[in-house]
Protein backbone atom coordinates (compact mmCIF):
# COMPACT_ATOMS: atom_id res chain seq x y z
CA UNK A 1 0.00 0.00 0.00
CA UNK A 2 1.38 3.40 -0.85
CA UNK A 3 0.94 6.43 1.38
CA UNK A 4 1.46 10.17 0.83
CA UNK A 5 4.66 9.89 2.80
CA UNK A 6 5.91 7.16 0.45
CA UNK A 7 5.05 9.35 -2.53
CA UNK A 8 7.14 12.17 -1.04
CA UNK A 9 9.98 9.76 -0.71
CA UNK A 10 9.76 8.81 -4.41
CA UNK A 11 11.67 11.65 -6.08
CA UNK A 12 14.27 11.69 -3.29
CA UNK A 13 14.91 7.95 -3.70
CA UNK A 14 14.95 8.29 -7.47
CA UNK A 15 17.64 10.99 -7.23
CA UNK A 16 19.63 8.80 -4.82
CA UNK A 17 19.31 5.79 -7.16
CA UNK A 18 20.36 7.94 -10.11
CA UNK A 19 23.40 9.13 -8.16
CA UNK A 20 24.35 5.50 -7.35
CA UNK A 21 23.76 4.57 -10.99
CA UNK A 22 26.00 7.42 -12.09
CA UNK A 23 28.80 6.00 -9.94
CA UNK A 24 28.37 2.27 -10.61
CA UNK A 25 26.16 2.00 -13.66
CA UNK A 26 28.31 3.76 -16.24
CA UNK A 27 29.21 1.00 -18.66
CA UNK A 28 32.21 2.88 -19.97
CA UNK A 29 33.64 3.30 -16.49
CA UNK A 30 33.11 -0.41 -15.78
CA UNK A 31 34.65 -1.34 -19.14
CA UNK A 32 37.66 0.74 -18.13
CA UNK A 33 37.83 -1.02 -14.74
CA UNK A 34 37.56 -4.38 -16.55
CA UNK A 35 40.40 -3.36 -18.86
CA UNK A 36 42.60 -2.40 -15.89
CA UNK A 37 41.63 -5.68 -14.18
CA UNK A 38 42.67 -7.70 -17.25
CA UNK A 39 46.02 -5.90 -17.45
CA UNK A 40 46.56 -6.50 -13.72
CA UNK A 41 45.75 -10.20 -14.14
CA UNK A 42 48.07 -10.55 -17.16
CA UNK A 43 50.90 -9.05 -15.07
CA UNK A 44 50.03 -11.32 -12.10
CA UNK A 45 49.92 -14.38 -14.39
CA UNK A 46 53.22 -13.45 -16.06
CA UNK A 47 54.96 -12.89 -12.73
CA UNK A 48 53.77 -16.26 -11.46
CA UNK A 49 54.57 -18.12 -14.68
CA UNK A 50 58.10 -16.70 -14.52
CA UNK A 51 58.59 -18.44 -11.15
CA UNK A 52 57.87 -21.82 -12.81
CA UNK A 53 61.10 -23.46 -13.95
CA UNK A 54 59.85 -26.99 -14.67
CA UNK A 55 56.57 -28.08 -16.27
CA UNK A 56 54.05 -29.79 -14.01
CA UNK A 57 53.71 -33.62 -14.40
CA UNK A 58 50.82 -33.43 -16.90
CA UNK A 59 52.54 -30.57 -18.69
CA UNK A 60 55.55 -32.81 -19.30
CA UNK A 61 53.21 -35.47 -20.73
CA UNK A 62 51.67 -32.96 -23.15
CA UNK A 63 55.18 -31.84 -24.12
CA UNK A 64 56.20 -35.46 -24.72
CA UNK A 65 53.09 -36.10 -26.78
CA UNK A 66 53.70 -32.93 -28.81
CA UNK A 67 57.30 -34.02 -29.45
CA UNK A 68 56.04 -37.44 -30.51
CA UNK A 69 53.31 -36.06 -32.81
CA UNK A 70 55.91 -33.80 -34.42
CA UNK A 71 58.49 -36.54 -34.87
CA UNK A 72 55.99 -39.25 -35.81
CA UNK A 73 56.86 -41.62 -32.96
CA UNK A 74 54.53 -43.48 -30.59
CA UNK A 75 52.67 -41.36 -28.05
CA UNK A 76 53.71 -41.66 -24.38
CA UNK A 77 50.14 -41.41 -23.11
CA UNK A 78 47.52 -42.15 -25.75
CA UNK A 79 44.54 -41.14 -23.61
CA UNK A 80 45.56 -37.46 -23.41
CA UNK A 81 43.41 -35.12 -25.53
CA UNK A 82 45.46 -33.99 -28.54
CA UNK A 83 44.57 -30.32 -29.07
CA UNK A 84 47.16 -28.82 -26.68
CA UNK A 85 49.92 -30.97 -28.17
CA UNK A 86 48.83 -29.90 -31.67
CA UNK A 87 48.92 -26.23 -30.63
CA UNK A 88 52.45 -26.78 -29.25
CA UNK A 89 53.48 -28.36 -32.55
CA UNK A 90 52.03 -25.42 -34.48
CA UNK A 91 54.13 -23.05 -32.35
CA UNK A 92 57.24 -25.23 -32.56
CA UNK A 93 57.06 -25.28 -36.35
CA UNK A 94 57.99 -21.58 -36.17
CA UNK A 95 60.10 -21.43 -33.01
CA UNK A 96 61.75 -24.83 -32.89
CA UNK A 97 61.05 -27.29 -30.06
CA UNK A 98 61.39 -25.32 -26.85
CA UNK A 99 59.07 -25.85 -23.88
CA UNK A 100 59.41 -22.25 -22.73
CA UNK A 101 57.57 -21.04 -25.84
CA UNK A 102 54.43 -22.80 -24.57
CA UNK A 103 54.27 -21.36 -21.05
CA UNK A 104 51.88 -18.49 -21.85
CA UNK A 105 49.49 -20.47 -24.08
CA UNK A 106 46.98 -21.34 -21.36
CA UNK A 107 47.00 -17.82 -19.94
CA UNK A 108 46.15 -16.41 -23.38
CA UNK A 109 43.21 -18.81 -23.79
CA UNK A 110 41.95 -18.11 -20.27
CA UNK A 111 42.09 -14.31 -20.56
CA UNK A 112 40.47 -14.55 -24.01
CA UNK A 113 37.69 -16.66 -22.48
CA UNK A 114 37.15 -14.07 -19.75
CA UNK A 115 36.98 -11.23 -22.29
CA UNK A 116 34.36 -13.18 -24.28
CA UNK A 117 32.44 -13.88 -21.07
CA UNK A 118 32.52 -10.23 -20.07
CA UNK A 119 31.35 -9.13 -23.51
CA UNK A 120 28.47 -11.60 -23.48
CA UNK A 121 27.30 -10.91 -19.94
CA UNK A 122 27.65 -7.16 -20.42
CA UNK A 123 25.19 -7.41 -23.29
CA UNK A 124 22.78 -9.65 -21.39
CA UNK A 125 23.07 -8.58 -17.75
CA UNK A 126 24.89 -5.26 -17.65
CA UNK A 127 28.50 -4.25 -17.21
CA UNK A 128 28.63 -4.42 -13.40
CA UNK A 129 27.19 -7.94 -13.35
CA UNK A 130 29.63 -9.01 -16.08
CA UNK A 131 32.55 -7.51 -14.15
CA UNK A 132 31.49 -9.41 -11.01
CA UNK A 133 31.33 -12.80 -12.75
CA UNK A 134 34.56 -12.20 -14.69
CA UNK A 135 36.52 -11.00 -11.64
CA UNK A 136 35.34 -13.86 -9.43
CA UNK A 137 36.15 -16.40 -12.14
CA UNK A 138 39.57 -15.13 -13.18
CA UNK A 139 40.81 -14.59 -9.62
CA UNK A 140 39.73 -18.06 -8.47
CA UNK A 141 42.77 -19.76 -6.94
CA UNK A 142 42.25 -23.13 -8.68
CA UNK A 143 41.63 -21.56 -12.06
CA UNK A 144 44.59 -19.20 -11.68
CA UNK A 145 47.07 -21.91 -10.68
CA UNK A 146 46.08 -24.57 -13.21
CA UNK A 147 45.73 -22.17 -16.13
CA UNK A 148 49.27 -20.95 -15.36
CA UNK A 149 50.61 -24.44 -16.11
CA UNK A 150 51.02 -26.36 -19.36
CA UNK A 151 47.68 -28.11 -19.04
CA UNK A 152 44.29 -28.19 -20.72
CA UNK A 153 41.99 -26.47 -18.21
CA UNK A 154 42.31 -22.98 -19.72
CA UNK A 155 41.96 -24.14 -23.31
CA UNK A 156 38.84 -26.18 -22.63
CA UNK A 157 37.49 -23.30 -20.50
CA UNK A 158 37.93 -21.01 -23.52
CA UNK A 159 36.04 -23.34 -25.87
CA UNK A 160 33.12 -23.73 -23.43
CA UNK A 161 32.80 -19.92 -23.25
CA UNK A 162 33.24 -19.64 -27.04
CA UNK A 163 30.42 -22.17 -27.50
CA UNK A 164 28.14 -20.05 -25.31
CA UNK A 165 29.23 -16.90 -27.11
CA UNK A 166 28.35 -18.33 -30.52
CA UNK A 167 25.06 -19.79 -29.29
CA UNK A 168 24.09 -16.33 -28.06
CA UNK A 169 25.01 -14.86 -31.44
CA UNK A 170 22.40 -13.39 -33.74
CA UNK A 171 23.45 -14.89 -37.06
CA UNK A 172 22.51 -18.42 -38.13
CA UNK A 173 26.12 -19.17 -39.04
CA UNK A 174 26.90 -18.83 -35.34
CA UNK A 175 25.21 -22.20 -34.74
CA UNK A 176 27.69 -23.83 -37.09
CA UNK A 177 30.60 -22.13 -35.33
CA UNK A 178 29.22 -23.27 -31.99
CA UNK A 179 29.26 -26.85 -33.29
CA UNK A 180 32.92 -26.49 -34.25
CA UNK A 181 33.64 -24.97 -30.85
CA UNK A 182 31.92 -27.89 -29.08
CA UNK A 183 34.04 -30.31 -31.11
CA UNK A 184 37.17 -28.39 -30.14
CA UNK A 185 36.13 -28.51 -26.47
CA UNK A 186 36.25 -32.29 -26.87
CA UNK A 187 39.68 -32.12 -28.52
CA UNK A 188 40.93 -29.87 -25.71
CA UNK A 189 39.72 -31.99 -22.80
CA UNK A 190 37.45 -34.96 -23.44
CA UNK A 191 35.08 -34.85 -20.41
CA UNK A 192 34.38 -31.13 -20.83
CA UNK A 193 32.39 -31.97 -23.95
CA UNK A 194 29.50 -32.53 -21.53
CA UNK A 195 29.55 -28.89 -20.39
CA UNK A 196 29.50 -27.51 -23.94
CA UNK A 197 26.72 -29.97 -24.78
CA UNK A 198 24.60 -28.83 -21.81
CA UNK A 199 24.88 -25.23 -23.00
CA UNK A 200 24.01 -26.34 -26.53
CA UNK A 201 20.96 -28.36 -25.41
CA UNK A 202 19.56 -25.57 -23.19
CA UNK A 203 20.10 -22.97 -25.94
CA UNK A 204 18.52 -25.27 -28.55
CA UNK A 205 15.44 -25.74 -26.38
CA UNK A 206 15.06 -22.05 -25.63
CA UNK A 207 15.78 -20.81 -29.19
CA UNK A 208 13.52 -23.40 -30.88
CA UNK A 209 15.45 -23.39 -34.16
CA UNK A 210 15.83 -27.10 -35.04
CA UNK A 211 17.30 -26.39 -38.49
CA UNK A 212 20.21 -24.37 -37.08
CA UNK A 213 20.63 -26.80 -34.17
CA UNK A 214 20.84 -29.63 -36.72
CA UNK A 215 23.66 -27.83 -38.54
CA UNK A 216 25.48 -27.45 -35.22
CA UNK A 217 25.08 -31.18 -34.52
CA UNK A 218 26.60 -31.99 -37.92
CA UNK A 219 29.56 -29.71 -37.12
CA UNK A 220 29.99 -31.35 -33.69
CA UNK A 221 29.97 -34.85 -35.19
CA UNK A 222 32.38 -33.91 -38.00
CA UNK A 223 34.94 -32.29 -35.66
CA UNK A 224 34.76 -35.09 -33.08
CA UNK A 225 35.05 -37.77 -35.77
CA UNK A 226 38.04 -35.98 -37.25
CA UNK A 227 39.78 -35.89 -33.85
CA UNK A 228 38.99 -39.55 -33.16
CA UNK A 229 40.14 -40.67 -36.62
CA UNK A 230 43.43 -38.75 -36.39
CA UNK A 231 44.19 -40.15 -32.91
CA UNK A 232 43.15 -43.65 -34.02
CA UNK A 233 45.36 -43.43 -37.10
CA UNK A 234 48.30 -42.48 -34.89
CA UNK A 235 47.80 -44.89 -32.00
CA UNK A 236 45.64 -47.70 -33.37
CA UNK A 237 43.11 -47.14 -30.61
CA UNK A 238 41.05 -44.39 -29.00
CA UNK A 239 41.06 -44.10 -25.23
CA UNK A 240 39.63 -41.13 -23.34
CA UNK A 241 40.93 -41.78 -19.80
CA UNK A 242 42.60 -44.31 -17.57
CA UNK A 243 40.14 -46.94 -16.43
CA UNK A 244 40.71 -46.08 -12.77
CA UNK A 245 39.72 -42.45 -13.42
CA UNK A 246 36.53 -43.13 -15.35
CA UNK A 247 34.48 -44.70 -12.62
CA UNK A 248 31.35 -42.57 -13.16
CA UNK A 249 27.79 -43.04 -12.06
CA UNK A 250 28.11 -45.48 -9.19
CA UNK A 251 27.18 -43.07 -6.38
CA UNK A 252 27.03 -39.36 -5.57
CA UNK A 253 29.99 -38.09 -3.58
CA UNK A 254 29.66 -35.04 -1.29
CA UNK A 255 33.29 -34.05 -2.07
CA UNK A 256 32.51 -30.88 -4.04
CA UNK A 257 29.76 -29.85 -1.63
CA UNK A 258 31.91 -30.33 1.47
CA UNK A 259 34.85 -28.49 -0.12
CA UNK A 260 32.76 -25.82 -1.86
CA UNK A 261 34.18 -22.86 0.10
CA UNK A 262 37.74 -24.08 -0.46
CA UNK A 263 37.08 -24.36 -4.19
CA UNK A 264 34.96 -21.27 -4.90
CA UNK A 265 35.64 -19.17 -1.80
CA UNK A 266 33.03 -17.87 0.67
CA UNK A 267 30.99 -16.35 -2.18
CA UNK A 268 29.67 -19.82 -3.00
CA UNK A 269 27.52 -19.64 0.15
CA UNK A 270 25.41 -17.05 -1.67
CA UNK A 271 24.67 -19.36 -4.63
CA UNK A 272 21.58 -21.07 -3.14
CA UNK A 273 20.10 -17.61 -2.47
CA UNK A 274 19.69 -17.13 -6.23
CA UNK A 275 17.05 -19.86 -6.22
CA UNK A 276 14.96 -17.98 -3.63
CA UNK A 277 13.96 -15.32 -6.15
CA UNK A 278 11.36 -15.59 -8.90
CA UNK A 279 13.39 -13.40 -11.27
CA UNK A 280 16.06 -16.14 -11.44
CA UNK A 281 13.55 -18.36 -13.23
CA UNK A 282 11.96 -15.64 -15.37
CA UNK A 283 14.97 -14.93 -17.59
CA UNK A 284 15.58 -17.81 -20.05
CA UNK A 285 19.25 -16.85 -20.31
CA UNK A 286 19.72 -17.87 -16.65
CA UNK A 287 18.69 -21.44 -17.47
CA UNK A 288 21.93 -21.95 -19.41
CA UNK A 289 23.94 -21.23 -16.27
CA UNK A 290 21.60 -23.16 -13.97
CA UNK A 291 21.84 -26.25 -16.21
CA UNK A 292 25.58 -25.79 -16.73
CA UNK A 293 26.26 -25.57 -12.99
CA UNK A 294 23.91 -28.30 -11.73
CA UNK A 295 24.74 -30.96 -14.33
CA UNK A 296 28.50 -30.30 -14.20
CA UNK A 297 28.46 -30.36 -10.40
CA UNK A 298 26.48 -33.60 -10.31
CA UNK A 299 28.48 -35.29 -13.07
CA UNK A 300 31.81 -34.72 -11.31
CA UNK A 301 30.20 -35.78 -8.03
CA UNK A 302 29.39 -39.17 -9.54
CA UNK A 303 33.07 -39.93 -10.13
CA UNK A 304 33.87 -42.13 -7.16
CA UNK A 305 37.57 -42.64 -7.81
CA UNK A 306 38.98 -39.29 -8.90
CA UNK A 307 37.89 -36.08 -7.19
CA UNK A 308 39.89 -32.90 -7.52
CA UNK A 309 39.22 -29.20 -7.02
CA UNK A 310 40.50 -28.42 -10.53
CA UNK A 311 37.64 -30.36 -12.14
CA UNK A 312 35.37 -27.40 -11.30
CA UNK A 313 37.39 -24.90 -13.35
CA UNK A 314 35.35 -25.03 -16.55
CA UNK A 315 32.05 -24.34 -14.79
CA UNK A 316 33.39 -21.56 -12.54
CA UNK A 317 31.52 -18.94 -14.63
CA UNK A 318 28.23 -20.78 -14.05
CA UNK A 319 28.78 -20.89 -10.29
CA UNK A 320 29.75 -17.23 -10.06
CA UNK A 321 26.93 -16.21 -12.41
CA UNK A 322 24.45 -17.69 -9.92
CA UNK A 323 26.30 -16.00 -7.04
CA UNK A 324 26.01 -12.65 -8.84
CA UNK A 325 22.32 -13.32 -9.48
CA UNK A 326 21.86 -13.82 -5.75
CA UNK A 327 23.69 -10.57 -4.99
CA UNK A 328 21.71 -8.68 -7.62
CA UNK A 329 18.44 -9.94 -6.16
CA UNK A 330 19.53 -9.01 -2.65
CA UNK A 331 20.58 -5.51 -3.70
CA UNK A 332 17.30 -4.98 -5.56
CA UNK A 333 15.37 -6.76 -2.83
CA UNK A 334 11.64 -7.03 -3.37
CA UNK A 335 9.50 -9.14 -1.06
CA UNK A 336 7.26 -10.08 -3.95
CA UNK A 337 10.22 -11.51 -5.82
CA UNK A 338 10.63 -14.30 -3.25
CA UNK A 339 9.56 -17.71 -4.57
CA UNK A 340 7.91 -18.75 -1.34
CA UNK A 341 5.71 -15.66 -1.12
CA UNK A 342 2.64 -15.43 -3.30
CA UNK A 343 2.20 -12.09 -5.05
CA UNK A 344 -0.62 -10.27 -3.32
CA UNK A 345 -3.50 -8.79 -5.31
CA UNK A 346 -2.61 -5.27 -4.15
CA UNK A 347 0.90 -5.70 -5.53
CA UNK A 348 -0.52 -6.96 -8.78
CA UNK A 349 -2.76 -3.90 -9.04
CA UNK A 350 0.20 -1.68 -8.38
Amino acid at each position, binding site marked *: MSTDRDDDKGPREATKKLRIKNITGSSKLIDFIFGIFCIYMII*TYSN*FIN*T*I*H*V*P*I*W*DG*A*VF*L*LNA*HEWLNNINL*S*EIYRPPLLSWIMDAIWVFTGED*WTTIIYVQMIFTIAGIILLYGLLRRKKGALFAL*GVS*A*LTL*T*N*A*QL*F*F*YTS*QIRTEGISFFFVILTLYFLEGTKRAHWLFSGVSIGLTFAARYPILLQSMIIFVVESISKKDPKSAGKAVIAIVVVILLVVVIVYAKTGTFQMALEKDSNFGTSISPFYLVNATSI*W*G*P*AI*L*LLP*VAFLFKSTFKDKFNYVFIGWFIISFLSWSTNASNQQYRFTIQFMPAAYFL*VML*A*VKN*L*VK*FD*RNNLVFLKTTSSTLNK
Partner: protein
Amino acid sequence: MLSAPQFIALGFSGIAIFTLLITVILSLSLGTHVGGNKAIIYDKKIISAMNDISTKVPFYEGIISPNFTPIVMYFTDRQVYTPYSANSYASLLKVMNNENYTYLLVFENQSDIPGLKDIFKKEKLPNLSKNFSEIATYNTDFSKLHLYKRNLIVN
Protein backbone atom coordinates in the same frame (compact mmCIF):
# COMPACT_ATOMS: atom_id res chain seq x y z
CA MET B 1 13.79 6.53 7.02
CA LEU B 2 14.25 2.93 5.98
CA SER B 3 11.51 0.42 6.77
CA ALA B 4 12.45 -2.80 8.60
CA PRO B 5 12.44 -5.04 5.45
CA GLN B 6 14.45 -2.42 3.54
CA PHE B 7 16.93 -2.24 6.40
CA ILE B 8 17.27 -6.04 6.46
CA ALA B 9 17.67 -6.14 2.66
CA LEU B 10 20.35 -3.46 2.85
CA GLY B 11 22.14 -5.48 5.54
CA PHE B 12 22.06 -8.64 3.42
CA SER B 13 23.26 -6.71 0.36
CA GLY B 14 26.17 -5.31 2.35
CA ILE B 15 27.11 -8.77 3.62
CA ALA B 16 26.83 -10.20 0.08
CA ILE B 17 29.05 -7.52 -1.47
CA PHE B 18 31.55 -7.88 1.39
CA THR B 19 31.60 -11.68 0.76
CA LEU B 20 32.36 -11.08 -2.93
CA LEU B 21 35.23 -8.76 -2.09
CA ILE B 22 36.64 -11.18 0.48
CA THR B 23 36.41 -14.02 -2.07
CA VAL B 24 38.37 -12.07 -4.70
CA ILE B 25 41.04 -10.93 -2.22
CA LEU B 26 41.43 -14.40 -0.66
CA SER B 27 41.51 -16.17 -4.02
CA LEU B 28 44.15 -13.86 -5.42
CA SER B 29 46.42 -14.48 -2.46
CA LEU B 30 45.86 -18.27 -2.55
CA GLY B 31 46.31 -18.80 -6.30
CA THR B 32 50.10 -19.04 -6.26
CA HIS B 33 50.10 -21.49 -3.33
CA VAL B 34 47.75 -24.14 -4.78
CA GLY B 35 50.62 -26.40 -5.85
CA GLY B 36 52.49 -26.04 -2.55
CA ASN B 37 55.48 -23.80 -1.93
CA LYS B 38 58.24 -26.36 -2.48
CA ALA B 39 56.98 -28.14 -5.57
CA ILE B 40 59.28 -29.40 -8.31
CA ILE B 41 57.93 -26.74 -10.70
CA TYR B 42 59.80 -23.98 -8.82
CA ASP B 43 63.15 -25.80 -8.94
CA LYS B 44 65.70 -23.78 -10.93
CA LYS B 45 68.30 -26.55 -11.03
CA ILE B 46 66.34 -29.63 -12.10
CA ILE B 47 66.52 -29.08 -15.85
CA SER B 48 70.30 -28.61 -15.87
CA ALA B 49 70.58 -31.78 -13.73
CA MET B 50 68.45 -33.66 -16.28
CA ASN B 51 70.57 -32.34 -19.13
CA ASP B 52 73.67 -33.62 -17.36
CA ILE B 53 72.04 -37.01 -16.74
CA SER B 54 71.42 -37.30 -20.47
CA THR B 55 75.17 -36.96 -21.05
CA LYS B 56 75.87 -39.78 -18.57
CA VAL B 57 73.23 -42.26 -19.72
CA PRO B 58 73.79 -43.58 -23.25
CA PHE B 59 70.97 -42.86 -25.71
CA TYR B 60 69.94 -46.51 -26.09
CA GLU B 61 69.67 -47.03 -22.30
CA GLY B 62 66.56 -46.49 -20.21
CA ILE B 63 66.24 -45.11 -16.70
CA ILE B 64 64.20 -46.41 -13.79
CA SER B 65 62.78 -43.53 -11.76
CA PRO B 66 60.40 -43.90 -8.83
CA ASN B 67 58.74 -40.56 -9.60
CA PHE B 68 58.32 -37.62 -11.99
CA THR B 69 58.47 -40.04 -14.94
CA PRO B 70 57.35 -37.66 -17.74
CA ILE B 71 59.54 -34.81 -16.48
CA VAL B 72 62.63 -37.03 -16.37
CA MET B 73 61.69 -38.51 -19.75
CA TYR B 74 61.19 -35.16 -21.50
CA PHE B 75 64.33 -33.48 -20.22
CA THR B 76 66.71 -36.45 -20.43
CA ASP B 77 65.31 -37.68 -23.75
CA ARG B 78 65.65 -41.26 -22.48
CA GLN B 79 63.06 -43.99 -21.97
CA VAL B 80 61.97 -43.72 -18.33
CA TYR B 81 60.03 -46.38 -16.50
CA THR B 82 58.38 -46.28 -13.09
CA PRO B 83 57.84 -49.83 -11.81
CA TYR B 84 54.59 -49.26 -9.90
CA SER B 85 54.26 -53.01 -9.35
CA ALA B 86 57.53 -53.22 -7.37
CA ASN B 87 56.83 -53.61 -3.68
CA SER B 88 60.32 -54.31 -2.33
CA TYR B 89 63.97 -53.78 -3.12
CA ALA B 90 64.20 -57.36 -4.41
CA SER B 91 61.30 -56.82 -6.79
CA LEU B 92 62.89 -53.56 -8.03
CA LEU B 93 66.07 -55.47 -8.89
CA LYS B 94 64.01 -58.19 -10.55
CA VAL B 95 62.21 -55.63 -12.73
CA MET B 96 65.55 -54.04 -13.68
CA ASN B 97 66.99 -57.45 -14.61
CA ASN B 98 63.95 -58.58 -16.55
CA GLU B 99 63.54 -55.32 -18.47
CA ASN B 100 67.30 -54.76 -18.95
CA TYR B 101 67.48 -51.43 -17.14
CA THR B 102 70.91 -50.38 -15.88
CA TYR B 103 70.28 -46.86 -14.59
CA LEU B 104 68.32 -45.78 -11.54
CA LEU B 105 67.49 -42.16 -10.73
CA VAL B 106 66.45 -41.51 -7.14
CA PHE B 107 64.87 -38.36 -5.72
CA GLU B 108 66.09 -38.50 -2.11
CA ASN B 109 63.30 -39.26 0.41
CA GLN B 110 60.69 -39.51 -2.36
CA SER B 111 58.91 -42.23 -4.27
CA ASP B 112 55.52 -42.59 -5.94
CA ILE B 113 55.80 -46.33 -5.42
CA PRO B 114 54.55 -47.00 -1.88
CA GLY B 115 56.61 -50.20 -1.51
CA LEU B 116 59.87 -48.39 -2.31
CA LYS B 117 59.42 -45.28 -0.16
CA ASP B 118 61.56 -46.64 2.64
CA ILE B 119 64.39 -47.74 0.34
CA PHE B 120 64.94 -44.23 -1.02
CA LYS B 121 65.16 -42.52 2.37
CA LYS B 122 68.41 -40.59 2.83
CA GLU B 123 69.72 -42.89 5.58
CA LYS B 124 68.91 -46.05 3.57
CA LEU B 125 70.52 -44.95 0.31
CA PRO B 126 74.03 -46.31 1.23
CA ASN B 127 72.45 -49.79 1.19
CA LEU B 128 72.04 -49.47 -2.58
CA SER B 129 75.83 -49.68 -2.99
CA LYS B 130 75.57 -53.47 -2.78
CA ASN B 131 73.99 -53.54 -6.25
CA PHE B 132 74.63 -50.07 -7.65
CA SER B 133 77.42 -47.58 -8.16
CA GLU B 134 76.52 -43.97 -7.66
CA ILE B 135 77.72 -42.10 -10.73
CA ALA B 136 76.35 -38.61 -9.99
CA THR B 137 74.48 -36.56 -7.40
CA TYR B 138 72.71 -33.28 -7.98
CA ASN B 139 71.69 -30.86 -5.25
CA THR B 140 68.63 -29.03 -6.47
CA ASP B 141 66.21 -26.63 -4.76
CA PHE B 142 63.54 -29.29 -4.50
CA SER B 143 65.46 -32.47 -3.73
CA LYS B 144 68.76 -34.28 -4.01
CA LEU B 145 69.04 -36.51 -7.06
CA HIS B 146 71.17 -39.63 -7.13
CA LEU B 147 72.02 -41.37 -10.40
CA TYR B 148 73.04 -45.00 -9.98
CA LYS B 149 74.35 -47.58 -12.40
CA ARG B 150 73.62 -51.24 -11.77
CA ASN B 151 76.74 -53.26 -10.96
CA LEU B 152 77.54 -56.02 -13.39
CA ILE B 153 75.90 -59.28 -12.38
CA VAL B 154 78.52 -62.03 -12.27
CA ASN B 155 76.99 -65.46 -12.65
